[in-house]
């Protein structure tokens, strides 16, 4: 018998008693004898592996499969998808606008975040004018009182003196 033939027989029936011709070949062929021994070992391993308990599917397995199928098959229609996109953009734009308006109303009328209001500018104007007058009159009239005509002062003015 040829080695290949013997090995095929060994693989098919590793645990069955071999025929005389196979045994005869194994006695004279150390390579096939080693092959037989190894294959016997491996087939024991296979047998033991096949006896290992297979894990059971967990509870609700079928329902989960069906849910995944539903998810996989659910495809939104293109028109609805378009409308949904437009709707979303509209909502986002409205929200942004509302938020901006709210912020504008809530912020204080003055402060570090905002310029002084027009009313404030109007109220401080006389002070600003007086300050400018000081500058314009210079050192000759150190105060506004000095620069006023005589008849505007109380009592003894310069003219009376």
């Amino acid at each position, binding site marked *: 018998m040829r080695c290949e033939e013997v090995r095929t027989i060994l693989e098919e029936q590793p645990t069955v008693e071999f025929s005389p011709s196979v045994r005869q070949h194994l006695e004279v062929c150390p390579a096939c004898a080693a092959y037989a021994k190894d294959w016997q070992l491996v087939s024991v391993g296979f047998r033991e592996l096949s006896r290992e308990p297979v894990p*059971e599917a967990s509870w609700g397995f079928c329902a989960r*499969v069906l849910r995944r199928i539903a998810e996989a098959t659910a495809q939104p229609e293109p028109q609805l998808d378009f409308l949904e996109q437009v709707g979303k953009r509209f909502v986002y734009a409205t929200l942004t606008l509302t938020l901006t308006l709210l912020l504008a109303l809530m912020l204080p009328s003055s402060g570090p975040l905002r310029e002084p209001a027009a009313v404030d500018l109007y109220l401080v104007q006389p002070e600003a004018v007086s300050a400018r007058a000081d500058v314009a009159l210079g050192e000759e009239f150190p105060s506004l009182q000095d620069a006023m005509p005589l008849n505007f002062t109380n009592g003894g003015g310069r003219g009376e003196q």
Partner: protein
Amino acid sequence: MENRKTEIGPEGEWVRRSQNGEPEAFGQLVERYQRRILSLVYHVVRRPAEVEDLVQEIFVKAFMGVRSYSFQASFGTWLSRIAVNHCYDYLRRQRVSRVEYYADLSEGRQRQVETRFEQPNPGQSSHEDQIAARELVAKLLDRAPPDDRIILTLKELDGMSIEETGDILGIKPANVKVRLHRARKRMLEDLKRLREGK
């Protein structure tokens, strides 16, 4: 070949309704075949944490392609074919970490498996030896190329006949025998390399 077997009985009706897009009918098929597919995937992949997810993906894939099922083979065989292809893709993706399973064993256990099978005539009678043989084969399967791993699993672990294996793999029985012989031969060569510490 199992021709047009599924046409008879409620299974054929479930398949037809599934082909018409009724997931509830497909649920009946899931109930019927989940154990078989789970066992097949578990034996091929051998990673309990990932098996259920893979089986779910297989059933989703099967539902998506159920219209292409033409009742030529039994529904179980058709489904097993999808499962095998899915496992094959998975194994190819995982190929970079093929020795992970062995690496998962503790260092002491690794050494135990190694030394036991470095001996010239390992005994096979004791329970410990059987466990060691099991771990050794698990390790060899893990190192085997995906093609070998799948064909050996179908034949040696799931106990399928040559004809069934051929149906699932879509090859002739004569080719199954040739491929099996080559896969076994490669496995034994790998066993030698393992003993030499490679």
